[in-house]
């Protein structure tokens, strides 16, 4: 049966190419979001995104080390990656959810979505691949992502949803008079 994760499930090389892209894009995106928050003087959320980027970079490095043992990875064009249900790699936090007044709670909700999508992707590959080594690695990565999901949930308990009006701005950018 043809599935949307077919490429990544095909063989170890393609799976690791997908995994490396997934982890690197996640880290890069957190850095971009942190930079964006700094530009808008939202220092608390900037720091949180920066911390999340550090965690993602560590995981990317782990994947890179595993990939090294499997020789050169195939080159895959950005549009040739096949993810489960997202256009971009599933762990890259979406730009569209960012707001210049967002609070740590919102950033963690974005992270929760990203980590959940990452877990789901690896679980899908594990379920659909016919390659036992891909299945083993995908299960391992899915478990690691499940750990991240649990960790972000714990953090979220420290940052409950802010009250309505968190995005009120006494000097909003869209006043034109």
């Amino acid at each position, binding site marked *: 049966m043809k599935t949307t994760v077919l490429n990544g499930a095909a063989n170890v090389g393609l799976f690791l190419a997908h995994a490396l892209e997934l982890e690197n894009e996640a880290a890069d995106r957190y850095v971009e*979001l942190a930079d964006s928050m*700094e530009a808008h003087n939202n220092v608390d959320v900037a720091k949180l995104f920066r911390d999340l980027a550090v965690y993602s970079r560590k995981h990317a490095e782990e994947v890179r080390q595993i990939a090294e043992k499997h020789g*050169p990875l195939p*080159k895959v064009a950005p549009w*040739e990656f096949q993810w489960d249900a997202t256009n971009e790699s599933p762990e890259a936090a979406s*730009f569209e959810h960012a707001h210049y007044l967002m609070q740590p709670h919102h950033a963690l909700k974005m992270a929760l979505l990203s980590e959940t999508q990452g877990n789901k992707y690896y679980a899908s590959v594990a379920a659909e691949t016919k390659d036992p080594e891909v299945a083993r690695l995908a299960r391992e990565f899915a478990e690691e992502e499940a750990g991240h999901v649990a960790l972000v949930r714990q953090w979220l308990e420290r940052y409950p949803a802010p009250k309505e009006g968190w995005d009120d701005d006494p000097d909003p950018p*869209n*006043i*034109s008079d």
Partner: protein
Amino acid sequence: MDTHLTENVPAPTPHDYKSDVKPIWCPGCGDYSVLAGITRAMANMGMERHNTVVVSGIGCSSRIPAYTSVYGYHTVHGRSLAVASGVKLARPELNVLIFGGDGDGFSIGGNHFLHACRRNVDMTYIVMDNQVYGMTKGQASPTTEADWCESKLTPEGPGVNPIQPVALALACGANFVARGFSGDPNEVARLIVEGVKHPGFSVIHVLSPCVTFRPEQRGWKSTVHPYGREPTDDPNAAMRAVLEDDGFGLGIFLAGNRRPFQPGSAVTSTIAQIEEGFAV
């Protein structure tokens, strides 16, 4: 899928095409994703940075040259295509990409757009369309709907029909015409790669929401859809299909076969002779 084994020489990454200048767009702006698509396209093509020039006009999206590590020229409002044409005609070996928005491209630079399509110089124009002047705080642009009433300058809406960029590009003779959406930066990267590779003037219309002045455009992600037809090399067929499209179809509309404009390279006069002509 076509895959290739990596070679020993490290392949460029999107990082290599980003500058140290951090974007100051509003968080949530579609232009972040377009920038991601641009750097991914450049990395995929292995573009030589010293042989690549990005040119822009004025506006939020025209800030792209500052955010890339290739040569950049942030020109004046609406004049990016004129400057880029000069760059490409003088140095045909360079990759020339132009970035801008709907106001810069279709209002202030509208006349240049018509003639750039007609002239068909081998370069690629990426228009980030958010249907509003964002940098000047939210006025109606040439692509704004006639009944958009959110600006105090046009409290009853602009009252005129918006320009259809894809149809206009086809009518004026652009040789490659496509539409992408910032919510899918990998597809934007593919369209840019296809546009750069295709000879002649390529127009890539990218729907890129302005979350500050047009927050309703966040809904575009559920409005866009695949164009659903194979690209044609026949501009008439492409135009007929585009007229049936709702403006949200994504894909390549035309990959034409017009010969790019490139005058002869023979030197016809010296700088001194040109300067003499300007002497009062």
